[in-house]
């Protein structure tokens, strides 16, 4: 919530930590809204998902962040996800609203 805190840490259930830009995390409305609470002070958000899932999600968030501007020109690469994670990822993506 402070402008000086630029990064947040996403922590997976198996304790993998991903330190990402706050702006990037804000792409997910769920992560954005959680900033107002305790997570806002510690800068840590614990998520109930495995490391590999969270990695995919972080990748997507950065993909979204990077290509947001270019999306209108239609010139962006595809985002690929591993097939075996698709289902689980769908559930989590639904949860994070991304």
């Amino acid at each position, binding site marked *: 919530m402070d402008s000086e805190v630029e990064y947040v840490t996403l922590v997976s259930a198996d304790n993998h930590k991903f330190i990402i830009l706050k702006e990037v995390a804000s792409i997910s409305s769920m992560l954005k809204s959680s900033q107002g609470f305790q997570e806002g002070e510690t800068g840590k958000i614990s998520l109930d998902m495995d490391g590999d899932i969270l990695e995919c999600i972080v990748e997507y968030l950065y993909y979204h962040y990077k290509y947001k501007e270019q999306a*209108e020109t239609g010139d962006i690469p595809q985002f690929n996800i591993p097939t075996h994670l698709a289902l*689980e990822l769908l559930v989590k993506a639904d949860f994070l609203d991304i």
Partner: protein
Amino acid sequence: MSRRSRTSGVRGPNSALTEFLRNAGITDAFRARREREATDGESTANGSDQDVQEVLEEEGDTVVEAEVEMIPTRRRSSRRNRVNEAEVEEDEEIKQIKIAAIKKRKMAKRGGNGDDDDEFDDPDFSEFEDEIGTNGMKRFGEEDTCVDCGTTFHLTVYSRFLKEKQGYICENCNETLKVRERKARKNQLNARKRRRTFAQALLNKSEVKIPKLQDICIKKISANISDVDALGDIGQVNLNKLSQILSKNRSLNDDTISLFLNPSLKSIEFWDCSNVDSDSYSKIASFCPNVESLTLFMCGQLHNDNLKYYTTNLKNLKNLSLNGPFLISDSMWQEYFEESGSRFEKFEIRNTHRFGNDSLISLLENSGSKLSSLKLSRLDGLDSEAVYDLIPHYLSPSTLTELEISYPHTEDIVTNDLLINILAITGESLQSLNVDGCTSLTDRFLLEGVARFCPNLTHLSMKLLDQVTDEGFAQAFDEFSKVNNGGLLSVDVTKCIGLSDNAIYSLLKHSSHTLIELSLNSLHQVTKDFFLQVFTDDLTAFKKSRLEMIEQQGDDEPEDEDEDGDGDHKKLQYFSHVRLPLLTTWDCGFVRAVDDEILDLIGKSCPKLSILEVYGNNKCTSKANIVDGLMVIGRQNDQI
């Protein structure tokens, strides 16, 4: 015979073949030239007419190309003369072309007129010949200077000639050039691909934007759906989305359908069941006994036995929508309605010829009084006017909220009287009315039915009602506005070809503040003047002067025909400005009056408009000024 005479600027009519050949770069230049050479000595006086066209054809290209192409050929030809005697003749031809091209270019520079035949032998020609003889005679193995970087290098067969710089380049420069060219080609491909994505997105009425992770996942899952054993807890919204995508891909089958069935479901929708067989339909009933609402489209394999099974197992079913259940027999329908018809609140059936007169009577008898939604579309088995006429007798007053009677077997079985009778009974509660393709309906249906009995109507669809007239519709909506205060949310008057300016004006006047969806497809009588006025502010000079003109006209010959002081419709009319603050989707395809100017005005008066279809309006071009957020679909320049 000289080519000079061709600059007369005359070009005769072209056949399609000539046009094609020209586009493909095929001309009769060689033949003509040979001929010319053959007769060159004999006659120089007459310009041949066939050549006139040829020159004009070439002119556009050669002016540009001649400069870059003449020299390589010159060198090459001299080289080849040495190397390969067999090609000499061909090279001669090429040389001739080039010579002609140069001459033409020079001609064009001079203004290209007033040249006479003798000029063919003018100094230009000999100059050119001299050039060939003296210049650019570098042979392979000799040293040359790179025209790009200036270094000296050995000329080889592989050395590359740069047309625009008129010289050879060294190996290094060639490499960089190759890379650059490859990039350019790649860019071109990408641009093409991008255009394609855009055009595709336009067709899907969606914008090109970053896909949601959920959509990426769903796409992945649907691509690998055969490997999925169970979907788990992915949320009902995603389940529905997935099932819709599978339906769209036609990959909903006996295996995949079971992924969507679970006992807690109250509502099931499958939009394309064409690959689902009879056993799976039974599975729906046995896996999901609590279902209250069942929608099965394209359910061609739904069998009598399935329906029988539903009778006993789906005890809570209240809403049933079926599209294409043509295996269910007339007698089975009756049996089914007798057993479980009393529970129905909503019933929809489309596209089956086996749903006959007796089936409908049975439905009405058993559930008619409770129905809140009745949709009957394309039922060719229902061929009796008398049976349709029974509908109003079974409906309870003011219970029906949705009614669709569309595309009846023959035109005359759905009449004005039928609709008026139905609306008289249940019009008060009706929110959605669809009478697409009931072509025998006329102004009376609107005037005495809709305008009188439907205070709460929000959706009106009346495609193909070609008997409805402009005046009738206008009058009906003026009266309707006294009954219905809310306004309509969606209106579809596709191909009601009788409608024109007045009708649309009174529609917009009544519902402009509420309209979200509008289709005026194929209303070819609507004029540009109407659009211009309706979407221009009343305070502009254009509108004021129009008003004055009409007042003057009114003084001269008083008109009593229209309301609002509008003039006679054959003369000038005045339409006040209409804003459509909520309109999001508008189909005005084949309303030919819509052009770039109107598109601009529409954008300004409809701030929420996101999809505008203009198929067939060939005056809508890429030059139109379109506001941000508005997607205009169907212009000729939108190409894949």
